């Protein structure tokens, strides 16, 4: 017979979200200047098999968010609040040794912004992947690891005989495939891809995006894809979070957010980005520039650039609230502004 407690736990376990970030705050300290509010109250969740896109302009805190989750922050970074829950467990509070052993790469891995920097130029790519495997799987023998390397290379569409190549002998697209293979080496549940295609040409980018999509489906991965490029992110994601000045200002199912944007910044962005399809239409720029995160504006961070601002926007920071089911927005006036175009 089951004890009631056990039942409760078992039932609870079914409801636990795979991954959840709650009100995360991470600031960098710059001596003599103050705090850079790079991640300032970020919340989102991710279920198995989902792809969440995080879009935002340069410096809004996207990479900082990824580094905070993976606990790869530089010394001047301070996590000042919030939780990162993996299967309901706060991995920010976990003993760092345990986190290294059990979480980083094994449960959550990262595809870095620059494939060039992620690979060691003087080590053959196969050996690099094998090394990554052996560091984590202490019991594994070299020849077993190499077997796994060949499987991984085949998985990302590289002829396994290329394991002997040095990074410079590979094209940019192939190097990015190697980096992806490395991220998959330990069968993670979640892969965070930070600008996985930024340095690549458009044809190669399309091939890498297709690879990520295929792998995601085949391995039932959850993916967080980070980029400044709305079009690229929309290619992969079923959910999207729009980030502005260290905060998520809008978040939800990608179709809800793109077809029915609620935040003025999201509306503005969608009108500022040219598309290759359809009739040529005039782009409406967003006035001003993103703020300095050392001295972010009072109230709503977007208010200095927002044509709809009122007193409350200058005084009070809006909360991220659920406007429609599963569609969140951080704006005091979203309700009155439904359907109103930017500018």
């Amino acid at each position, binding site marked *: 017979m089951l004890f009631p407690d056990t039942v409760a736990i078992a039932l609870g376990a079914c409801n636990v979200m795979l991954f959840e970030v709650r009100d995360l705050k991470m600031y960098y300290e710059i001596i003599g200047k103050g705090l850079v509010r790079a991640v300032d109250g970020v919340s989102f969740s991710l279920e198995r098999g989902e792809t969440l896109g995080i879009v935002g*302009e340069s410096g809004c805190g996207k990479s900082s968010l990824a580094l905070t989750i993976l606990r790869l922050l530089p010394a001047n970074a301070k996590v000042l609040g919030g939780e990162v829950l993996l299967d309901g467990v706060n991995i920010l509070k976990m003993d760092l040794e345990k986190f290294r052993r059990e979480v980083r790469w094994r449960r959550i891995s990262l595809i870095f912004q620059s494939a060039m920097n992620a690979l060691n130029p003087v080590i053959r790519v196969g050996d690099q992947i094998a090394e990554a495997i052996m560091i984590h799987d202490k019991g594994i023998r070299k020849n077993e690891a190499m077997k796994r390397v060949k499987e991984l290379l085949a998985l990302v569409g590289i002829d396994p005989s290329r394991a002997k190549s040095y990074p410079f002998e590979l094209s940019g697209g192939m190097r990015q495939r190697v980096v992806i293979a490395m991220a998959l080496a330990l069968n993670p549940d979640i892969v965070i891809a930070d600008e996985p295609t930024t340095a690549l040409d458009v044809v190669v980018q399309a091939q890498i995006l297709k690879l990520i999509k295929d792998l995601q489906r085949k391995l039932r991965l959850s993916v967080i894809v980070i980029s400044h490029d709305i*079009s690229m992110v929309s*290619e992969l994601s079923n959910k999207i979070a729009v980030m502005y000045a260290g905060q998520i200002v809008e978040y939800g199912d990608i179709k809800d957010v793109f077809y029915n944007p609620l935040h003025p910044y999201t509306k503005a962005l969608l009108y500022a*980005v040219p598309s*290759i399809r359809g009739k*040529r239409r005039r*782009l409406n720029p967003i006035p001003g520039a993103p703020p300095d995160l050392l001295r972010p504006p009072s109230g709503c961070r977007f208010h200095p650039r927002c044509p709809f601002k009122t007193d409350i926007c200058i005084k009070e920071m809006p909360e991220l609230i659920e406007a429609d089911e599963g569609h969140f927005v951080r704006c005091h006036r979203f309700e009155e502004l439904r359907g109103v175009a930017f500018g």
Partner: protein
Amino acid sequence: MVEPVIRVINLKKYFPVRAGLLDILRRKPRLYIRAVDGVTFDIYEKEVFCLAGESGCGKTTTGRTILRLIEPTDGKIFFKGEDVLNYTNEELKNFRRRAQIIFQDPYESLNPMMTVYSIVEEPLKVHKIGSKEERYDMVMRALEDVELKPPEDFIHRRPHELSGGQRQRVAIARALILNPEFIVADEPVSMLDMSIRAEILNLMLKLRDEHSLTYLFITHDLAVAKYICDRIAIMYLGKIVELGPAEEIIDNPLHPYTQALIAAVPTPDPEEKIGEIPIKGEVPSPINIPRGCRFHPRCIYARPECKVREPKPIEVSKGHYVACLLYE
């Protein structure tokens, strides 16, 4: 017939590959990177003419060679009917005033030690134009033209005290101050944030109208090209494979390479996904350009003759040229 502002005929630029000592001792033939390998086009007044294509296809080299920042290996360049390659020193100096360049990276192209005022004023001093007072007025007007208003707020700042978009405006003001007729804009918005790109693109269009400017606009981003350009030329391995009105190139691409490029561009519409990309393999090295049609190893329609015969540009519809044996 209207005279084009720029006429480029069969322009070539080959860079020698540095040879190792052994290669020299073995008397290996010298190798060349054929960065630009026979490019022909005209740009008309007030036109935005775009060179698009993937990294390394020769866009920048073409732009710089036209301005004689690089000497061509072969070919002809005319600026309003004048033979740019036969300019005397005096004429070349004059050309350097009438034709300007804007670079991709406003961080690198502006001297970090100089104030905005001296950056924008410098070309006037180099060309010994105006008195100190006249130069002041010209600098202030140029800053207003690029919408750095009021200019008094900006003239004392240094580049690091400006946002990316403001820096690119300073670079544009500097290019404008000499009242040029022609500007090469080499990826002028690639480094900028998306919210600022639209602003710079619209500014460039406004300046074109107000100052009767003509642009050679270099970009790898076809969505940007479709937005700002009147005509687009698609380059592949140093050659133009297709050229025509912007909307036609994007909406009705004819060359198999252009078709692949356009199929690969993601759109900001979540319902529209990238399909199969009709292309094989990877870009070959510009040292070993394939014989025949240089695209044939990657072309899904390639036929035996594509390996041996180099296609010539064919005018398929008015002003729409394609260099592909499928259309010959």
